[in-house]
């Protein structure tokens, strides 16, 4: 499942961007230094293959509904971790830009959730040891299913974790987790079966492709990437815990919600209290606009929310102004070179 921009906070999104960017840079330099320059066109074409393969659906056994290939694990088996990670990342970039899946800020989260776990965890730590060097049908299938399930569970956990830390959704951590994990268990089993079916075919037709002949030296040295990841995770954890304690908006906010204490503060409380002060001076807030339910704690949120009525009036007005600006810009476009509003 893709994260959406609207559900991530800048801190979470930015941190995950940084983590993914580090991983992309590392994997890129690793591919470049491997001297295996045939990998790059291969990765590009296989990325396109993932899109193409998703056009073909199949009937999910026992249910009658239809599914399609996700592809993360398959790429990892075919290309090795680094190349697979970059390929998945590139697919996600295209999806974010063209198909509005996820979004630009959430891209870092998505690359991490859908790329890191299958390429650097599920494949090397589960699929490879489980399948062994010359797997039987059953063994390969079992390895693929287990790796796919774990990869997707980790990915789903990532989504839940990042969403709750961002604190945009009111869903509590545990209930979101309960919602996501079972769905992804089912998706993971199906993904594993499909991956196994494709791998078995390749195994029969072109066994040499599965020997890891493409990137032998890439899959071996995992340690640097794992170390990078751990550092990044620590950094993320530190940043986020600071954020969470500073702004009771993430996990703690959910907990507060459940336990009944109501402390509602936007992440920009500081900025807003300043505005609130200005606003109180102007004192134009009509009394009926909001009801102070919980004097002490609600004031902050109240002053924010109390503005919403006047805010909505003003917002609509600015929206209209924006539309007018656009209308004018489009009318004058031919005459006016560089019709940007600020010029």
């Amino acid at each position, binding site marked *: 499942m893709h994260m959406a921009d609207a559900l991530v906070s800048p801190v979470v999104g930015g941190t995950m961007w940084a983590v993914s960017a580090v991983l992309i840079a590392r994997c890129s330099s690793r591919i470049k230094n491997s001297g295996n320059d045939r990998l790059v066109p291969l990765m590009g074409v296989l990325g396109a293959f993932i899109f193409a393969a998703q056009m073909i659906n199949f009937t999910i056994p026992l249910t009658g509904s239809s599914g399609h290939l996700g592809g993360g694990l398959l790429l990892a088996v075919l290309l090795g971790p680094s190349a697979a990670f970059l390929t998945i990342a590139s697919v996600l970039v295209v999806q974010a830009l063209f198909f509005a899946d996820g979004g630009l800020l959430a891209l870092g989260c998505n690359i991490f959730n859908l790329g890191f776990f299958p390429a650097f965890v599920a494949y090397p730590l589960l699929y490879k040891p489980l399948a062994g060097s010359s797997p039987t049908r059953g063994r390969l299938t079992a390895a693929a299913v287990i790796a796919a399930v774990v990869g997707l569970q980790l990915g789903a956990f990532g989504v839940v974790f990042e969403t709750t830390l961002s604190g945009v959704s009111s869903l509590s951590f545990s209930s979101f987790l309960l919602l996501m994990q079972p769905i992804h268990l089912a998706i993971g089993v199906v993904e594993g079966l499909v991956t196994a079916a494709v791998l078995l075919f390749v195994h029969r037709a072109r066994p040499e492709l599965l020997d890891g002949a493409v990137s032998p030296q890439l899959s071996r040295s995992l340690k640097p990437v794992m170390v990078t990841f751990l550092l990044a995770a620590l950094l993320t954890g530190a940043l986020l815990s600071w954020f969470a304690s500073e702004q009771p908006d993430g996990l703690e906010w959910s907990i507060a919600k459940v336990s009944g204490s109501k402390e509602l503060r936007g992440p920009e409380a500081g900025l807003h209290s300043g505005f609130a002060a200005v606003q109180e001076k102007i004192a134009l807030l009509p009394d009926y606009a909001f009801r102070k339910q919980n004097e002490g704690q609600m004031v902050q949120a109240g002053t924010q929310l109390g503005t919403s009525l006047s805010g909505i009036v*003003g917002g609509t007005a600015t929206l209209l102004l924006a539309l007018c600006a656009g209308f004018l810009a489009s009318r004058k476009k031919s005459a006016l070179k560089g019709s940007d509003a600020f010029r």
Partner: protein
Amino acid sequence: MRSVEGALLDFRQLERLAERDSPLHHVDARAKILATLVFIICVISLGRYQLAALFPFFIFPVVLIAGGGLPVRYLVSKILLVIPFVLVVGIFNPLLDREIVAIAGPVQISGGWISFFSIVLRSLLTVASALILVSLTGFPALCRGLAQLGLPKVFVAQLLFLYRYLFVLAEEAARLKLARDQRCFGGKGTGLASFGTMIGHLLLRSWERAERVYRSMLSRGFAGEFHCPSGSSFGVGDTLFLLGWGLLLLAIRLYDPARLLGLLLTGGVQ
């Protein structure tokens, strides 16, 4: 998820938009990428209850759509496609967060509803900005811009390969699918066994294509180094574009003109 066929059609459409000619199309990709980034960060950094503060940010997509001569209806229909996903996650807010925080006459508004609408609006804004960025720039130019901004060349080259073979392989997949569906009556034969073989075939064909592409690269002197054709230089117009939007967006973010205007409009009366 939407059908990939539909998505590919969209892909073509967006690309055609990028071929149009407007002053905005000629702005350097880097300026557009960075301005979009500033926009997204400004929008996302607003608090969950700051619904009204989101409205002024519509100036960015609206002006770019108008200035770039992009088809409004098409873009809106594309942007609306993401709504269902957002609804699924956002709809829990009104259910869980029932604190009444505002009363407008007879209507009581809970915090959940406000944060719900703020999620929806943020989605619309951020998705719109991404689509507009692509429509005004085009994918190859975007990739070149990203390379100039420091994205590793290997990754950029690979993105461009992906883009190049997307349609070729998608058409191949569509033919395979047609061939199967024509011989599958009532859904029999669309199971996992035939699927594995089909995808396997598609995979091997793709692999062989990659090998041929690599050979053709070698034949033209490729020696492991990807040369980016020297992109355009960052001109005065590009700087103005970036500075102008950056300052405007930051100003909107910091001074919430919606509220100021709202206070002016409602305050004057009361």
